[in-house]
Structures are given as structure tokens and as C-alpha cells.
């Protein structure tokens, strides 16, 4: 094709475009063919504008069998504009609602948009009135989410853990705790360090429509600071404990006590404990009670993690045994015969803030179990401990 042919084609095309343009281009184009939305189903396909969400949902572990309408246009939950033979103007929403996770998960079954009933997992504790027991570790997170309006109600809390959404958490706590344990086993807080903020990033795709399998929700994703304080296998500076962790694996020191079961030993992660989260829960924050009657914080139904103290297990006020995945079931290392040894520190300690309960155990063992003294324990992510001014 030579230049002349190109010129000819350009001239003809230009002329045709000029002639046709006014009738094909209009600001009103395609605006007067209003879709009929009177069929019982949703006549406006959500995915025509939200294909990215649809693609994300297809990668989700859960909710893939649901339709957009089951969550966002479910007439059995809220009144949106719909037509099932009778016309309904919307009330809470027109096209779609912002669904609340607990709309479904505070129940054991729900009715889908098409009227069929399915079973759904009940959110333990959080699905109860008032979000259930106060011993759920994350109850405060759920409650406080109500104060913010990015998500519906408490959805921010649900989505933070259960989806691939990114989360950045700035934990602010005292840099250290300065406390004394006196000869009567009273714990007295002397002073607190200045605010120290540690930022943790939970990575992810940033999608709220990719729900993670429950076994892929990792405690350490949001609590990397705590894991950093725990994950120390090197000996303590004092040599009194075989590690410098913020969770004492075991301790026999110079005392006569039999060596304790290594329920808190992180070296069992990957064997007795399937992963870090299993370690966090099974060894501390949601241990399985093998027998007996534990205190309420170990007995009440909670949502995954428990808000508790070392002394919830290590107490002689209750008689029970805990499943130790590293070696069967056992008494949580506070034998009844020990009452004369440490008196009532398991009771007295509850006059001190919960934040330092673990520090009393850790610092005491790191110092070689003195009968009294001054301790300074640095907060997570640090694992530093001082006893009477010396690092231990």
C-alpha cells in the first residue's frame, strides 16, 4: 500500500467519521435503556463493576459458595431494594448492605438470599450477647472496634485476623516495669518506664474478601513483638535458666524441685506443637484442661485466646491438670505442698497489674529464685531482666 492509498483511506474514513460522529457519540448514550429489575433475582450483576472482589473471593478459603447477594443483598437480614413479586423500597440500604460478620456468625444457621437455610460456624464467645466471657483475649479489640467506623460495627476486629487484609499495629506499653517482691511474697510496682511503642506489620494481599483458613491465622503475625521476646534460646546472663526467653521453658536451677515439664519450651514447635500459634495457645493462652476444675479464665468459653495470668494455671487455689503436648498431662507446676514455700504469691500477685504477672515468673527464675528483691523487666519486644541492678 503506497502513500496515495493511505491518503485515500484516511480521507474516506475521516469523512465517514465526521458524518456519523454526532449520532454515535452522545453524552446521553446508553442512558435511556433502563434495565428491568423486576425479576426475583438480582438483575444488576455486582461483578460487572466489582470483578476484582469476585476474583479475590475465588481465592478465599471460605464464602466461595455464597453469592454476593447472600451477604450484601439478603432480604432475610436487612431490607434492601428488591422485587420478589412485591416491590420493596430499600430501608437500611438500596443496592447492597455493608454486612456485619456477626449477622451470620452469631447464629448456627442462616437463610440465604434464595431462601435456603444453611449451617454456619458460630463465633465462640463473640457470637454471644455482649461478646461473651471477659476472658477472651481479644474481646477488648472487638468492643473497641465499635468506636471506629471504617468497618461495620466490630468488623475491623474480625477482618484483621480472619482475612488477608494487612494490619499495622502500634503497641504502646511501658518500656519497663520496676517492681519488688518482698519477703511476704507481695508484689509491689515501684515505677513504670515511659511509653514505648513497637510497630508490627501483618502482611497480606490487602483483600477483605480472602478469608484465611483457621489454621493459617498466626498469632505471631500481629504479636511479633511478643514472639521476639520469647524466641531466645541463648542462656540467661545469670546462667540460672537455660534460656533468656520471656517464657521459661523449664527451670531446675540450684533448687531441689524436680525439673518441670517443658510445656513452654519453644524447641517443641514443629513437633509437639504444630506451629507457633499452637505453642501460644496450647502452652499458655488456651491450654486443654485434662481433669479437675480450673479457674474461670480457663473454664469459660472464649474466642481462641484467653486473657489470663501465669498464676491462672500455676496456683494451688484450684485442682486440675493441663494437657502438656510435650509429655502428657500434668499438674501445672504449683503443687499443693508448695503453700509454705511461696506462700500466697499466686493470690497476692493479682493486686499487681496483669501486665507484670509473667514478669514475676520470668525475672524470679532468671535471678535464681531469690526470696525477695527488686526487678526491672523490659517489656516486649525486649527480653532484658535486671535483678537488684544486675542483668540476669
Amino acid at each position, binding site marked *: 500500500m503506497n502513500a496515495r492509498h493511505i491518503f485515500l483511506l484516511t480521507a474516506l474514513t475521516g469523512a465517514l467519521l465526521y458524518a456519523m460522529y454526532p449520532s454515535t457519540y452522545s453524552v446521553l448514550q446508553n442512558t435511556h435503556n433502563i434495565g428491568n429489575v423486576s425479576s426475583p433475582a438480582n438483575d444488576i450483576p455486582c461483578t460487572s463493576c466489582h470483578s476484582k472482589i469476585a476474583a479475590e473471593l475465588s481465592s478465599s478459603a471460605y464464602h466461595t459458595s455464597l453469592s454476593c447477594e447472600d451477604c450484601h443483598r439478603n432480604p432475610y437480614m436487612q431490607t*434492601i431494594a428488591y422485587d420478589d413479586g412485591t416491590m420493596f423500597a430499600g430501608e437500611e*440500604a438500596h443496592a447492597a448492605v455493608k454486612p456485619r460478620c456477626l449477622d451470620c456468625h452469631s447464629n448456627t444457621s442462616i437463610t440465604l438470599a434464595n431462601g435456603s437455610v444453611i449451617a454456619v460456624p458460630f463465633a465462640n464467645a463473640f457470637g454471644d450477647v455482649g461478646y461473651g466471657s471477659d476472658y477472651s483475649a481479644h474481646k477488648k479489640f472487638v468492643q473497641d472496634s465499635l468506636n471506629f467506623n471504617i468497618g461495620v460495627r466490630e468488623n475491623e476486629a474480625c477482618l484483621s485476623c480472619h482475612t488477608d487484609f494487612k494490619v499495622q499495629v502500634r503497641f504502646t506499653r511501658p518500656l519497663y516495669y520496676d517492681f519488688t517482691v518482698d519477703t511476704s511474697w507481695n508484689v509491689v510496682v515501684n515505677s513504670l518506664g515511659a511509653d514505648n511503642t513497637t510497630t508490627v506489620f501483618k502482611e497480606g494481599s490487602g483483600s477483605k474478601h480472602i478469608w484465611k483458613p483457621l489454621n493459617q491465622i498466626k498469632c505471631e503475625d500481629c504479636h511479633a513483638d511478643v514472639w521476639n521476646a520469647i524466641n531466645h534460646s541463648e542462656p540467661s546472663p545469670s546462667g540460672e535458666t537455660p534460656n533468656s526467653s520471656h517464657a521459661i521453658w523449664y527451670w531446675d536451677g540450684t533448687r531441689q524441685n524436680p525439673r518441670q515439664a517443658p510445656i513452654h519450651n519453644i524447641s517443641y514447635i514443629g513437633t509437639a506443637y504444630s506451629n507457633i500459634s499452637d505453642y501460644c495457645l496450647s502452652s499458655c493462652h488456651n491450654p486443654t484442661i485434662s481433669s479437675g476444675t480450673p479457674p474461670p479464665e480457663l473454664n469459660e468459653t472464649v474466642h481462641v485466646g484467653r486473657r489470663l495470668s501465669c498464676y491462672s494455671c500455676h496456683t494451688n487455689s484450684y485442682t486440675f491438670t493441663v494437657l502438656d503436648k510435650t509429655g502428657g498431662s500434668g499438674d501445672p507446676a504449683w503443687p499443693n505442698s508448695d503453700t509454705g514455700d511461696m506462700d500466697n504469691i499466686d493470690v497476692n500477685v493479682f493486686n499487681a*497489674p496483669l501486665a507484670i504477672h509473667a514478669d514475676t515468673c520470668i525475672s524470679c527464675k532468671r535471678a535464681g529464685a531469690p526470696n525477695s528483691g527488686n526487678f526491672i523487666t523490659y517489656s516486649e519486644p525486649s527480653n532484658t531482666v535486671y535483678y537488684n541492678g544486675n542483668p540476669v
Partner: protein
Amino acid sequence: MAIEKGLLAFIITAAIGIIVLPSTVSLFSGQHDWYYLDNPTSDVPCQKCHADIYAELNLSSLHIKWGDSAKADTADCEACHRGNSSVTYTNASAGQPGLEAHAATRAECSYCHFNTSNMWNAVHGNLSKTLGYDASGCRCHNPHGSDAYGIAGGFGLSNLATDTGLNSTHFELLTGTAFESNVYPDESEACIFCHADVGVKFNFTTYTEYSLSVRNSVTTTSSEWSVTDISATNFTTYTEVK
């Protein structure tokens, strides 16, 4: 070579003809044949200039019920574009010159669909000829027998008592188009995006991260964690084309 030159001449002539011929013809045809608007039964046919819109409307099952309910016609145009009761349109047969508008106004979806009193009772310019008159103004038909039909509830913007709109996902789309765009009146763009076959390109900018501030409030006797802030962060932009 001679054939090519002939072809060239033909194409150039055709191209010029395409551009020039229609206006040349119209210069001499029809422009002195005025519509007789004093007759209440006659009107300016909107589709004369808006044939494309007429064709679209004819494909729609909605908004064609005025006039001949089986097809689009001028009555349907008037229902929306000469139906604003606050506007006085030109009406020659009534001797009424237009005040706020001459032939037509831009239609706001919300004019009817946020207002139960107007739904199917919209006043057609008070002086609509095609639709006729009655004592209270020209009223729309009520073909569905229900004033509630067609009310766009769920945004908290209609006059339905139960329309709270407290949990609507698309509310921001309405407010955005109402205040940030003037392609169509008020929030009509948002309505059309979903309810019409118009192409839409969305550039979504959305957050992908919660930024949480949490604090352990510790005293000498107690401690408690609390969430002091949750913000949306880590924004990203992506495009959807309807």
C-alpha cells in the same frame, strides 16, 4: 493508472458529498414547514433530533408507559424532561412562554424516585399537551397501582419513613456524583451507572490495611489493653470497566 485516478476522484467527491450534502439539502428542505403548536394535540417530536435516545428508550421496558405504553414516544420524553412542577416550560397552545426552561429540562432520577408523592404523580410541566390536563395538573399514569413502586429507598434520601440508609454501600457514590460531578443533574450519574446499560470506568482508590494503635494502660495495680485508633491506610488504585 486511469482507473486509479478515477477512483481517487470518486472517493474525494463522495467524501465531500458526505460532509456537505446533508446540510446542503436541509438548507432547502423542510426548514420553512413550522410545527403548528397551537394545536394541543401536536407537539415537537423529540425523536427528530434525538433519534438515538428514542431508539434506546424503545428497547427499554421501563419509562415508556406514558402515551403509547408499547413503545417510546414524545409523552415518555415529556414525563421526565417536561415534568418538573417547579419549572414552567414553553407551551404555545396555552399561550405560555417558557420561564425556567423552554423545551426541556435535564431529568433528575431522584425527582420521582426519592419522592412517594411524586411517584407516578409527577406533574408534567403543568401544561403538558401530550399527556393532557386535569384540575390538579397533569398526572402520570399509575400503571403499577402502587405509589411505593420505584422509590429508591435505602439511601436515607427518600421520604419513606423506613428509609434509613444506615448501612448502604453505595451512598458515597450518590454523594460523590451529586457534589463532584455535573454530567447529569444531582446524583443521576450514580443511578445510571447501575440501572442503565451505559459503559462505566471506575478508578477505585481503596485502603488495604488497618492501622491500629493499641495501648496497655498500666498502673501500679492494674493494666488493660485498649484500641485507641483504627485508621485506613496503604491505599491502592485499581480500575474496573463495566
